[in-house]
């Protein structure tokens, strides 16, 4: 796991909505001129743009080998995977590296004081405790805010950490147990394709309407 921080060159601006992604490409022929999309993990208040990247394939490996000071092409932010302030009760379902857009949104909303008016529940599934990204940062936001709660799930190991109580895959049963009622809440799902597809199907089966669900799959 690696977080890359970029500063704009010359007059470029860093205007984006937390939850959006940017298209990234190399200036030379590394990664054969390919373009990849990565969610932005920083917030608009930051003076830099951060991308948090898991080493998965050739492209992300090349990113992991970047040297400090190197330049990259980064597109205008795109995507509409973010909540509206009018959504009072929001549920984030994150699988692994799928946490990145949510982290940006949560941090931004905390910075802007929106967590006093809007309720966010984050279900965050990881394989192991070591793989939980932003663990400390999320807890720092959750501890003083009664309206923001994180439910951590681990699928491959058990720990004695008091903050982590669930050791299973994320399913609607777990979500229902925590939320009691699904109706009227807005669901955002982000993670690997299977994670997103399964939860989308299950939520629909449990009566959640299509316009209350937003998805973003990482592939």
């Amino acid at each position, binding site marked *: 796991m690696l977080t890359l921080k970029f500063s704009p060159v010359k007059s470029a601006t860093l205007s984006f909505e937390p939850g959006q992604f940017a298209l990234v490409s190399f200036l030379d022929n590394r990664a054969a001129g390919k*373009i990849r999309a990565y969610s932005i993990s920083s917030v608009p208040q930051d003076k830099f743009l951060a991308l948090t990247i898991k080493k998965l394939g050739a492209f992300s490996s090349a990113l992991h080998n970047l040297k400090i000071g190197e330049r990259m092409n980064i597109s205008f932010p795109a995507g509409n995977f973010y909540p509206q302030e009018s959504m009072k009760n929001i549920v984030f379902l994150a699988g692994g590296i799928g946490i990145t857009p949510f982290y940006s949104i949560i941090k931004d909303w905390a910075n802007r004081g929106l967590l006093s008016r809007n309720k966010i529940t984050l279900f965050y599934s990881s394989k192991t405790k070591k793989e939980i990204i932003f663990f400390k940062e999320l807890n720092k936001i959750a501890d003083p805010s009664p309206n923001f709660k994180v439910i951590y799930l681990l699928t491959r190991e058990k720990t004695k950490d008091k903050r982590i109580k669930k050791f299973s895959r994320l399913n609607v049963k777990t979500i229902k147990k925590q939320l009691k009622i699904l109706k009227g809440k807005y669901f955002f799902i982000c993670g690997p394709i299977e994670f997103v597809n399964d939860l989308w199907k299950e939520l629909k089966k449990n009566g959640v309407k299509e316009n209350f669900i937003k998805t973003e799959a990482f592939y």
Partner: protein
Amino acid sequence: MKKKKNKKIGDVIGKNKGKSWLYTGIVKDHFFHPRNVLLDETNYQYDGKGIAGNPLCGDIMALWIKVDPKTQKIKDCKWRTYGCASAISATSMLSVMVTEKGGIAVKKALNLKPQQIIERLGGLPELKFHCSVLGLDALKEAINDYLKNKETK
């Protein structure tokens, strides 16, 4: 030494999962008989146009929509692609989904998900998921183009 036997000869097996890659009948139907394809747009009066894809990776999609100004519903959707079988089938299905039953509202179309298209196709191999996103990206571009055009009118 024993040789492993392939259970399904002629089928493609996904390299990660060993799962069958057989396409559903609906996917094949939409691939062999794609709906709403537009080969020449010179005389086509559209309200919004979107292009998506990455010419470097090879897949590119163009999509056009006509919108009913009163109801804000999509009344026509045409597309053309240089893409794979899954992209063709998925976009063909997408063009049907946005125009059937009198069309869906543009605002609602912005929240269409690849999962909905895949469900209507009866499934798509996981490694082909991104192909269903291409048409959606072009549709979102087309809707944004339409909304921009409407503002400046």
